[in-house]
């Protein structure tokens, strides 16, 4: 018998907690993204991306003291004006960094490839491994 000594309320609470335990690692990163973006939004002018026909939050003007969409379109500009800590590591970061960008371009649609691999597939693999680890730890704990 499942939860023999608990009331219906307690049983439901325990079930909800179990579901939450698995949902929190899935939702938390997206929640953090929304909090960061929406707290930054008031001071931003935004720009209209004509290629995707969507309005971005940050401007697309090159600024020396701040990152904008210019850094996305022109990595060289970002590296010349904004990079502070990784200057000495370009030689081994760039092959991976630009290799990933090239691979995403090779999918035929950079935005869709980016979204599929970096927003859904890769996080899904990490989430799957995390859930399996939680299940295995539970099995080991309870024998």
């Amino acid at each position, binding site marked *: 018998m499942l939860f023999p000594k608990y009331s219906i309320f307690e049983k439901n609470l325990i079930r909800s907690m179990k579901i939450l335990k698995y949902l929190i690692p899935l939702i938390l990163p997206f929640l953090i*993204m929304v909090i*960061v*973006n929406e707290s*930054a939004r008031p001071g931003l002018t935004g720009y209209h*991306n004509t290629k*995707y*026909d*969507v*309005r*971005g*939050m*940050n401007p697309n003007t090159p600024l020396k003291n*701040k*990152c*904008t*969409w210019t*850094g*996305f379109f022109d*990595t060289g500009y*970002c*590296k010349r004006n*904004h*990079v*502070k*800590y*990784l200057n000495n590591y370009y030689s081994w*970061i760039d092959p*991976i*960094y630009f290799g*990933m960008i090239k691979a995403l371009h090779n999918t035929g649609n950079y*935005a*869709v490839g*980016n*979204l599929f691999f*970096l*927003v859904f597939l*890769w996080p899904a*693999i*990490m989430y799957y*491994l*995390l859930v*399996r*680890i939680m299940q*295995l*730890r539970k*099995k*080991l704990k309870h*024998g």
Partner: protein
Amino acid sequence: MDKVVDIGKWIFMYCTDFIINVANLTGTSYYEVNAFIFVFLWPALTAGLLIYYLFLRVRLRREISAKQVKSMKT
């Protein structure tokens, strides 16, 4: 279908805006935040999770076989 593509484009722009906002909040750059997440953090985290998962699987299998041996003896 057009609606799905539009939502996809919006999510892509929103995620890119997030990286730019994190760069400005931390006083770093778009390049550095991207490099930190996609070149260091996620590969390390994925490898770590995979290694730990395999380690737990092996441990569980050993425990199960140890229990089986024990029950066969008794």
